[in-house]
């Protein structure tokens, strides 16, 4: 089947949805292609958003309402196998001829099993930040035995800033997510103790530093500067963790009921395939390069291909949505010549 449209938006996460809405509202024809059977992307797995504790479902609902009112043609369950600035081919064989493309394909989560020393997938009570959000959704935080954890360790930078696993880049949002998650644990389990193990606290956004202080002052969350070297299972499913407190320069062994790994954002492998097919440039991290970091951040090295959201680097939800607006304007400007 051959379809024709003005702009193809690849990826139905927050950036893709927003970009598609903007394009249609400006009177352009647009097809939104999403690999999954539902829209919303990774945000669907998230419970609340930092630093305001806004419900992520509110954000998704708002975007989906906007989408309903637009005239966007959504192709769900459709994987893109080839892309250029004028053609998008799907796994089903459908070809979409277009005048511009917005890539909003996002990121992949780092597979925590690769950091074998933490035992994710082997020890029952080693979970990831995503698993924890799932628990927040259900309203209960519990170990595998069903008990509420009394002591929780949160480890930052799992699969970020780690050359050993070829992920040199910072995933940017994990520090503040860890602060948010620590507070959410303390809100649900006030008697629990929460320890965050960090390299640096990168509180870059508005209200983040304040939230970090609130976590310490109001919720008594402990922050230890040092990475956990390994986790091991103790009887009854508890975990022993080893770390170094680099501020006191002392090694530390601690027993906890649950270890939460803050998994980073990783560039998807398909970025390399897109780059090969289109001539797009990639950064060393595997994320797609923008044409210019300052004035043309949503443009790429290939005319007619635009980018929005975490396809270029880890970003917050707000940044991704704002960028989607920018990308759609740039695409419109391009097709209008």
């Amino acid at each position, binding site marked *: 089947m051959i379809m024709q449209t003005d702009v193809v938006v690849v990826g139905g996460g927050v950036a893709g949805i927003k970009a598609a809405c903007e394009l249609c509202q400006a009177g352009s024809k647009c097809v939104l292609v999403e690999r999954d059977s539902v829209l919303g992307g990774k945000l669907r797995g998230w419970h609340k958003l930092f630093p305001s504790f806004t419900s992520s479902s509110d954000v998704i609902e708002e975007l989906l309402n906007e989408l309903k009112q637009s005239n966007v043609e959504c192709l769900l369950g459709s994987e893109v196998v080839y892309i250029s600035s004028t053609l998008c081919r799907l796994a089903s064989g459908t070809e979409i001829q277009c005048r511009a493309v917005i890539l909003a394909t996002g990121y992949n989560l780092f597979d925590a*099993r690769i950091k074998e020393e933490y*035992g994710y*997938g082997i*020890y029952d009570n080693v979970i990831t930040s995503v698993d924890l959000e799932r628990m927040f959704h259900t309203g209960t935080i519990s170990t595998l035995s069903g008990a509420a954890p009394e002591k929780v360790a949160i480890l930052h930078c799992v699969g970020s800033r780690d050359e050993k696993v070829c992920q040199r880049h910072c995933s940017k949002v994990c520090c503040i997510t860890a602060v948010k998650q620590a507070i959410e644990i303390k809100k649900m389990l006030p008697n629990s103790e929460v320890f965050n193990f960090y390299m640096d606290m990168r509180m870059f956004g508005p209200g983040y530093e304040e939230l970090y202080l609130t976590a310490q002052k109001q919720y008594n969350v402990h922050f230890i500067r040092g990475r956990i070297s390994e986790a*091991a299972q103790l009887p009854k499913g508890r975990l022993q963790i080893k770390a170094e407190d680099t501020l006191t320069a002392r090694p530390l062994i601690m027993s906890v009921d649950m270890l939460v790994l803050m998994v980073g954002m990783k560039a998807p492998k398909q970025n390399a395939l897109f780059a090969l097919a289109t001539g797009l440039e990639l950064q060393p991290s595997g994320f797609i390069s923008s044409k210019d970091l300052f004035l043309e951040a949503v443009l790429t090295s290939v005319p007619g291909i635009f980018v929005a959201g975490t396809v270029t680097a880890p970003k917050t939800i707000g940044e991704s949505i704002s960028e989607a607006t920018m990308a759609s304007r740039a695409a419109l400007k391009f097709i209008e010549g």
Partner: protein
Amino acid sequence: MRRGAWEDYQKDIADDKYYYARSCIRQNFFPGSEKAFLNIVGRDLGREVFDDPLHTSCTGIGYHSDIVPYETIMTVVARQFSLMHEAGFENFISSCITSFGIYTEILNTWEEFPETEEKTRESLYKATKRELYKPKNLAHTSDVIFHLRDEIKQRMKYPLVNHLTGEKLRVVEHIGCHYAKIFPKRGIGGSEFPYVLAGMIESWGGDVVDYPERRHCCGFGFRNYLVQANRGYSIANSHKKLESMAPYRPDFIVCNCPGCTMFLDKWQYTIAEMEGTTYGEAGQGIPVLTYEEMAGLVLGYDPWELGMQMHAVNVEPLLNKMGVEYDPAAKYLGPNGKYIGKPLQSVVNSSRGNTSLYDIKK
């Protein structure tokens, strides 16, 4: 224990025709183990193993002690490989973990830096007039036993089960650091959840104990032990491991490294003498076995033929649990029936619990 990743770490292990490189120290520490390997793999399982009297030490201890330069050890290793080729073999197996680490490191160096290989080739020719032939397959001898574990199981006489209660024996497995911590991809199961010994234990009916300090080094560490003033570090590491495994009441420990097997065994003697602390049931210490000894017991070998009388921690409690038939009176008789001498009584074997024959602090 649940294992996530071990199947990602597999390696090819040759099935036959092995060139056997012995360890420098094992024949003193565990004199029956290498012989047991040759008997099990060669005689019982019908594989061809060539035990070459021409090969030398790999000089790994000298290398790790900064006495032997890398260029020298590469040439020594190149000579071993040439000897293998001259003997008509392609599959190199090493009895020692340090050597295995050395061979792995050098083969990887040559792969990454072909100019270094070329230089070694020249050095080898200048020194010995030999040509360098790299092995087709490199494995540690514990890899070979792992590879043959099911054939051993078919001939099993005593499974790793308490024959009185029917319960599986609880086994601590300890892997030498140089087996997989340097090159995880070259070890069965990788470095975090190694499977080489665990696979044997599970195959022969035992349970693997996962305890918090499982990955911790035994403390041998060449600089820890070879420098006398540093030996406190060595024993502190073994102590840490023993303390961590004790609550799991292991029936025995099995290792694949010469150093680990010796230190986890003999430091138990030392800790008992120093502190009066003994681990294991009834204060009788935790027996420490080589994987050949474990395989030998499973196959019904005589424990004294396996050289188990040389252990610091007595193995009889384990033999009794497994229901192994043995002659207690023959313990200190050598292969020719000659009395080989008997160690003095020690705290670790005295079942006295927290007492000591003498207090070295006084």
